């Protein structure tokens, strides 16, 4: 599509054994754009997200983020571990189950990327990490271990950890699905703030109201194909495809975001 797109996916294919989970996916995300990926489980949306930072290596097609482009399929060599690592350092990812490092304090979790990957001096990394923790409202939890935090707090630390790498793109893989309902709001608020600051984001989510509010584009996937895509409000309020309509009928589509329940 346009020259200015931050992420460009062309003809992406991926199979696990005989199970074809992604079938010829094309996707563009503009710089500063927020794209929500929705769809039933098994639709391939999480796999697509994981192809964006190559945690899953596609079987065919191409992935471009910023100026880095990888092609997959016959005749193309798989990128080596150093190239992969450098590429992943420019994208941040937030996982459904947080995946915080349990043997490190909150502060150490956030410092880990800058220190180990970017070779930043400890003092600078600590300053950066404290700033990121403050940004997600957890400055005073710096010296605690993840086990002592609530789910919502853990996920905010995970967001701070990803942001400490100063990524161009943030990927969210069902970031609120493992949270108790009353803790969802505090995480969505952080994500919404990030979007309003102009971060390019791809969000796999079941929070339809949030997608409607925050995403500018929405993609509905089923069985490894993009069934429908367009401006988020338009697709949610007025879906064109029967499959989209059927899926969306399970959700409340509008309404305010859940309120943030904690002050911390």
């Amino acid at each position, binding site marked *: 599509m346009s020259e200015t797109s931050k992420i460009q996916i062309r003809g992406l294919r991926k199979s696990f054994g005989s199970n074809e989970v992604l079938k010829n996916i094309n996707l563009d995300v503009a710089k500063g754009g927020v794209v929500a990926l929705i769809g039933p489980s098994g639709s391939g949306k999480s796999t697509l997200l994981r192809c964006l930072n190559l945690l899953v290596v596609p079987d065919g097609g191409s992935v471009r983020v910023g100026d880095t482009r990888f092609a997959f399929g016959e005749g193309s060599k798989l990128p080596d571990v150093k190239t992969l690592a450098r590429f*992943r350092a*420019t994208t*941040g*990812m937030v996982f459904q189950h947080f*995946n915080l490092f349990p043997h490190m304090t909150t502060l150490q979790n956030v410092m880990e990327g800058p220190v180990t990957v970017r070779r930043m001096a400890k003092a600078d990394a600590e300053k950066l990490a404290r700033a990121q923790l403050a940004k997600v409202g957890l400055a005073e939890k710096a010296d605690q*271990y993840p*086990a002592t935090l609530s789910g919502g707090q853990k996920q905010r630390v995970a967001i701070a950890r990803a942001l400490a790498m100063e990524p161009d793109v943030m990927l969210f893989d069902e970031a609120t699905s493992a949270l108790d309902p009353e803790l969802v709001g505090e995480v969505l608020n952080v994500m919404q703030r990030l979007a309003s600051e102009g971060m390019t984001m791809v969000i796999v989510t079941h929070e339809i109201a949030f997608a409607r509010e925050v995403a500018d584009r929405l993609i509905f996937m089923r069985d490894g194909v993009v069934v429908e895509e367009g401006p988020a409000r338009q697709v949610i309020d007025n879906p064109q495809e029967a499959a989209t309509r059927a899926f969306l009928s399970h959700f409340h589509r509008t309404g305010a975001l859940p309120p943030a329940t904690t002050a911390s």
Partner: protein
Amino acid sequence: MYQWDFGILWSYRWLFLNGLGVTVGFTVVIVLLGLVFGLFGAFGSLSRFRAVRLVALAFIEAFRCTPILVQLIWFYYALPILAGVEMTPITASALALSLYGGSFYSEIIRGGIISIDRGQSEAGAALGMTPGQTMRRIVLPQAIKRMIPALMNQSIIQFKNTSLVSVLAVPDLVYQSQVAAHDSYRPLETYTAVAVAYAAILIPLTIIVRRGEKRLAVGE
């Protein structure tokens, strides 16, 4: 009724101490060397390359599935004949015990590494770490905590297994006590004292490890 007389052992004290020194020194060597073999075995069995995995697996099963006493004798008597490798009893038994222990350490280390949730390596990779960095910074520090009780247990078994080197006439505690027992005609007292000596060393060690485990569990 048997008349116990432990006093007679006092005249053999230097023999016992000597043997104890050999036993402890031997254990230190075979535990350290065994851990080195264990690391190779564990990372070999987790390698991306099939050939490396097969070699590691062959090593682990060969030493895990044959009796240590047979290995000791084999290293001392069979290797010189088959491969022309002459070894002193000490070298042969140190090598056999290290490889034997290493095969068990391999499985403990491998099990510890694969017990760490895949999400941990994914989180490391997503930050831009190489697989090596993820292993060193994220996986191993967590895996080692889980390995320590099993590694310690295996090392305790290794400490006791050193008693088998007496069959190759390595002068460890058991070998020296055989000497003492034959000389004094007091085998009951001698071997009771030997059992107490092993326990007296191991029980404090197990207490230290238990304390260490509690301290390491912080943050879990």
